């Protein structure tokens, strides 16, 4: 009787242990749920702002531009040019004509110009996705009351035009092309500088350096540097790259920029600053990857009469490569999202010219997002959300590329 009841209900001690186990189980579950909720909220906010209803109000209604009953979209090129000429100032017309003579422009081009400069659609109010889906009737009533001339249009803020257009002070026309190009240029320089230095330093520390107080000090400090706030790196970049090495980072030393106007607030300075920022991360990751290469592999190589360099080059580095690439992915993800050090180094807040090399002024996606969220007009919040979507997509693409590369190398072994 004793045994069977104990087997079924357990001793008091077992019951107590099971209760403790259940409590921990619930705590871990709760932690996971909190994390999922936080992530979902983040995604919801971004998606919510990236799509929605807009009330579009035209400066001049397209109907009023109809000629002899023919609607605007069916007019010929010549008629459109005529409309354009009568509605904009002579100066504006001359400027566009100088850009590309109207005689050479296509009908579609002129039609787009008429829409942009003459019809001039303006977003007078925007509503996020959640309201657009669930409060459609109230929004229609509000729009009819407050903006009788406006049309309600459902739109996504992430469009091909958004990716193609440079920055603009008009929310309707603003895009992220300059920011994407700026980000890509900066990251390119960051990788090109940080990856070789990081891997080389890791190889030296793991394979060559003897274990004594100096190397231990260096290792400890690399670990500490990985935790230094990024704004400190921004100050460092400002002092060294922007100020001290101005002749070099502005391109003046190479004769690529006018020494009187050039300054060091360039893509090169930003890339070098970010390279400094991710260098400790890269070194630590590469060290871990090199340390994880089995000792037996090194022994096999040395046992055949290989030199240290042959062992490292033919066996240690190929085996560590997947790990090094993983670390690089993490480091680059961090660099591409950095804002603070670039603000200090001097990213431009408003720039409409594409960066064309390491010595151009620049802006990056995070800077652009930061700057748009600081604007008072509500439309720019939607633009910021759309830019976040672009930034996340860019990150995903880069990570996917790196993972594909890594898998290819792992398979080859």
């Amino acid at each position, binding site marked *: 009787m004793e045994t069977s009841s104990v087997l079924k209900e357990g001793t008091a001690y077992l019951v107590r242990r099971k209760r403790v186990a259940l409590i921990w189980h619930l705590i871990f579950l709760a932690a996971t749920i909190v994390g999922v909720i936080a992530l979902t909220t983040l995604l919801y906010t971004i998606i919510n702002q990236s799509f929605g209803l807009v009330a579009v109000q035209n400066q001049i209604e397209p109907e009023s531009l109809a000629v002899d009953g023919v609607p605007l979209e069916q007019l010929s090129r010549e008629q459109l040019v005529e409309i354009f000429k009568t509605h904009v100032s002579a100066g504006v017309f001359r400027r566009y004509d100088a850009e590309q003579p109207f005689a050479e422009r296509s009908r579609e081009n002129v039609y787009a110009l008429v829409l942009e400069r003459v019809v001039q659609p303006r977003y007078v109010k925007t509503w996020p996705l959640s309201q657009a889906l669930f409060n459609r009737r109230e929004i229609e009533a509000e729009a009819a009351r407050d903006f009788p001339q406006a049309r309600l249009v459902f739109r996504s803020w992430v469009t091909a035009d958004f990716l193609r257009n440079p920055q603009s002070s008009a929310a309707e026309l603003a895009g992220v092309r300059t920011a994407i190009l700026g980000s890509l240029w900066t990251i390119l320089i960051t990788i090109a500088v940080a990856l070789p230095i990081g891997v080389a330093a890791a190889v030296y520390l793991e394979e060559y350096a*003897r*274990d004594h107080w100096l190397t231990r000090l260096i290792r400890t400090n690399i670990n500490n540097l990985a935790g230094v706030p990024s704004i400190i790196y921004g100050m460092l970049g400002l002092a060294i790259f922007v100020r001290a090495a101005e002749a070099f980072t502005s391109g003046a030393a190479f004769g690529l920029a006018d020494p009187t106007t050039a300054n060091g607030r360039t893509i090169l300075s930003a890339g070098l600053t970010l390279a400094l920022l991710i260098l400790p991360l890269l070194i630590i990751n590469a060290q871990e990857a090199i340390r994880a290469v*089995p000792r*037996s*592999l*090194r*022994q*096999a*190589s*040395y*046992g*055949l*009469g*290989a*030199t240290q360099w*042959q062992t490292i080059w*033919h*066996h240690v580095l*190929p*085996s560590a490569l997947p790990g090094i690439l993983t670390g690089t992915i993490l480091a680059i993800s961090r660099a591409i999202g950095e804002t603070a050090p670039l603000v200090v180094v001097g990213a431009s807040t408003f720039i409409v010219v594409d960066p064309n090399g390491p010595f151009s002024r620049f802006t990056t996606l995070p800077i652009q997002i930061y700057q748009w969220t600081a604007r008072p007009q509500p439309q720019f919040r939607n633009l910021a959300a759309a830019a976040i979507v672009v930034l996340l997509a860019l990150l995903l693409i880069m990570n996917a590329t790196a993972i594909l590369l890594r898998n290819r190398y792992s398979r080859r*072994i």
Partner: protein
Amino acid sequence: MFTISQLIKPGRPLLKNGDEPRPVTVYESVSKRPEALTNGSQASAGSSWAIEARNLNVYYGDFRAVKDINLQVHPHKITALIGPSGCGKSTLLRAFNRMNELIPTARATGSVLYRGQDIYAADVDPVEVRRRIGMVFQKPNPFPKSIYENVAWGARINGYRGNMDEMVELSLRQAALWDEVKDKLHQSALALSGGQQQRLCIARAIAVRPDIILMDEPASALDPIATLKIEELMRELAENYTIIIVTHNMQQAARVSDYTAFLMMDADRAGMLIEYGPTRQIFTRPADRRTEDYITGRFG
């Protein structure tokens, strides 16, 4: 318990005299046979030792792992190092090609003479030592490359200039692996079985044409059939190479080796050479009481 007559293959002569000619090497750096190394204290018909430890001590930090070892290894014979766990067999083995140096705290005193040259002399390059004194490890550790590359790599980095395909085939044939892998030379070596991987490691070791092959418990991770194959292979290799093997398996030492060295720890846990002689003698008429206790299984 076992009797020695069951363990040693019948019909196999324990001692062979003279050195068979070794295969022709195409290495530029190696052209000579071991120089005759006359040793006055030894009366064994003027034959030179393949390698010889003199007053060898190996330390890990402050710990002395092996103590005052004096050991002369016969060329083209298999010498087994036996002894209880932790007695310094593997340390002694690795001291023969300076592999211990990969452990940062390890250091050696005394000398190891190879062709009359102390390999621990200041001007000797351990890389060249390891090329001439190869090693096969306890756990099969092929490179994560193709079978072909595993064999070819060592030869290539050592400056081999001959026909690589022939060299790979010859090495694989010598390691008794050719017939099993000739159709999948360019597949990963990691897809082979444990026993095949170990024979590949042997093929890889002989591809650089060493004089001496050190084997650190080469069959301890393998099943009995694979073990037998490795042992047969070792007998064949002994025609051309000097082999020193560490083994925990006394039957294996008795089956395969020509000479046996018995090591044991002293009170400081430092390994000492207790007895060394022809295998038959060690296993049938040991001179030292401790050797007898060990091989009859009374301790260890």
